[in-house]
């Protein structure tokens, strides 16, 4: 029997100006897993990731999310279906405070309807109280309580990434796409981030699909790991096993120049 798949990419292809970035690529993410996606530059990881996240439409193939064909749906509709993402370069709402960054997330808030803000004052206020309670919980979970009323634009790079992770906790997501969480984050904060991802996975049952260059992080979090090269999947399995595969070592890891002391 097939595993319970949350994301199922089927034979997806995409080219830019005649150059195939992704071709006939199939992969899947099992429910409850933290699946990693690695590969050399230009392997098509970002393109594939953007197709899954709804920023790009594939030329061929389809993306199945939780049993439903979601090929080409825009990001905000994918959000509605429970597929969330974070960004490689933190995309915080810089003029909103940390708490507001989280409070804007829940969908269909009564106060988001122009009409209700005018005539259903009570409903709006009640919704707002509930949203704020939830946002403060998440802020505490992430250890951001100290900066909760700071404008997000003034937070450090790592705090912004934590905040992004926090946004995915404001709703019941079925899967979260993590786009290079480690990029531009120092080690100490990375531990905190990785710890939060692990906790969300274990305690809250989140599924993660992680695109990453940082091998330490991949090694710590991901199982299985999918290796892409030249626009298609080269191999899949636990990282330790992949490191033994000469094809992958040649294509990706290379031979070290000099062993660190």
């Amino acid at each position, binding site marked *: 029997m097939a595993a319970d798949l949350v994301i199922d990419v089927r034979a997806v292809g995409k080219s*830019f100006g005649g150059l195939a*970035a992704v071709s006939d690529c199939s992969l899947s993410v099992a429910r409850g897993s933290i699946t990693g996606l690695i590969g050399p530059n230009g392997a098509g990881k*970002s*393109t594939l990731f*953007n197709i899954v*996240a709804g*920023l*790009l439409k594939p030329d061929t193939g389809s993306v199945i999310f939780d049993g439903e064909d979601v090929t080409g749906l*825009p*990001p*905000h509709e994918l*959000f*509605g279906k429970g597929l*969330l*993402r974070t*960004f490689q*370069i933190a*995309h*915080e*709402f*810089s*003029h*909103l405070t940390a708490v*507001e*960054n989280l*409070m*804007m*997330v829940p*969908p269909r*808030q*009564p*106060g*988001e*309807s*122009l009409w209700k*803000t*005018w005539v259903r004052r009570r409903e*709006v206020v009640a*919704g*707002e109280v509930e*949203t704020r309670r939830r946002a403060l919980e998440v802020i505490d979970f992430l250890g951001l309580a100290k900066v909760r009323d700071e*404008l*997000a*634009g*003034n937070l450090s790079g790592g705090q912004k990434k934590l905040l992004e992770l926090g*946004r995915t906790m404001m*709703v019941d997501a079925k899967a979260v796409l993590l786009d290079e969480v480690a990029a531009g984050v120092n080690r100490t904060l990375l531990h905190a981030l990785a710890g939060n991802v692990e906790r969300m996975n274990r305690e809250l049952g989140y599924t993660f699909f992680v695109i990453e260059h940082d091998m330490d992080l991949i090694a710590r979090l991901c199982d299985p790991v999918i290796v892409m090269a030249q626009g298609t999947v080269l191999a899949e399995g636990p990282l330790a096993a992949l490191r033994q595969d000469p094809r992958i070592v040649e294509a990706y890891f290379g031979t070290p120049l000099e062993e660190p002391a």
Partner: protein
Amino acid sequence: MIRRALLLYLGLFALIVAVGFAMGAPFTVRLLVEAAAYALIALGLNIQWGFGGLFNFGIMGFMMIGGFAAVFMAMPVSAPFWDSDGPWMLGKALLAAGAGALVILGANRLHRIGFPKPLQRTLQVIAWIAAYIFFRTQIDPAIAVIESREIGWVGGLGLPVWLGWVLGGLLAAGVAWLIGKACLGLRSDYLAIATIGIAEIIFALLKNMDWLTRGTLTVSPVPWPVPLPQQYQAWGSTIDESFIYARAGYLLLVLAILGAVFFLIQRAYGSPWGRMMRAIRDNHIAADAMGKDVRARQLQLFVLGSALMGIGGSILISFAQIYDPSSYSTVNHTFIIWVMVIVGGAGNNLGALLGAFLIYIVWILSEPVSQWLFTTISGWTEAIGWGAIPDITSRSVQMRVFVLGLVIVLALRFAPRGLIPEIGAGRRPQDQPKQESPDEAVQ
């Protein structure tokens, strides 16, 4: 911040009182009515630009639509038109337009029944051309009939003018919806060009559609929703008093509308709705990823703001009592609103309101002030034998365009966030603006 706003409003009040003493009450009340209508329009632009970061340089077009609606609703019914073939022929033209729209819609959907893309493109183009030709075959003779000497134009519906204001808002909203559907995906500077173009087209249409608007022949007198000065004179007021009473009545009506609109917008902006809009303006890619339908929300802002512009345009036309499409200009009806919002403080309704009153007063007063200035200088030049300055009156009118231009560049340089900046804008994030576009996120 609140103190600053309070002080500025006190200053504005003092200025208005001073103008009242200098120019007389009837003049000042007239100025206030117009300023209040402009304030409504400035609030509309503040919704679009301040809340949503949307460029709209087509304000003139929406104001013209609003003015037309006031005329069409309130002018008396034209018997010659309704007795002629005109209505029937116009009806046929309308049907032709509808049929054309159906054909185009059909062509747009051909791919769903398996037509190949290139063939569909061709058919789409053919559908557009066919629909256009068909429409022209119906509308051209209708226009010829209506524009004949006996009929002239379609006239109005003879309904209360406030219905015209409502229609003005609705029509402007409808047009904004169409424009927004087509253009809101564009980059901000392209949207600016597109909206300027649309305003130019609306201008060309309303100016040349003599059968609908009488074009350059102008329409007057457009009725008022409150008693006219003549009415008060009939009731026994002096001429001066009658103008004050009548215009004050009009002013109260406009202020009531302005107040209600202000209250509703403020309330929405302080709610999650406003938070969502700020988030979208900040980073629309992330807002999209967080489940907000960015395009739909921007469309909402665009339609809402444009509706206010339409209403403001209606109010101005019924107040002036004359509709002259060729009197509209980009400077007087689009750029001035931008100056109001930027000087007042984009993103802050109190700021936009203040900016509207202040700039309108500067705009109106710079004419008499420069006239006085020119006359004085002219006296000197005459005294030293250089001769007087010719055409002082028409030159003074131009002076205010220059003054407005100067005000906007000075404001951008010295108070880029306006007199009453957006709440929270003082605590500006330190980091550099992000340079990431959707295309770059892809590769």
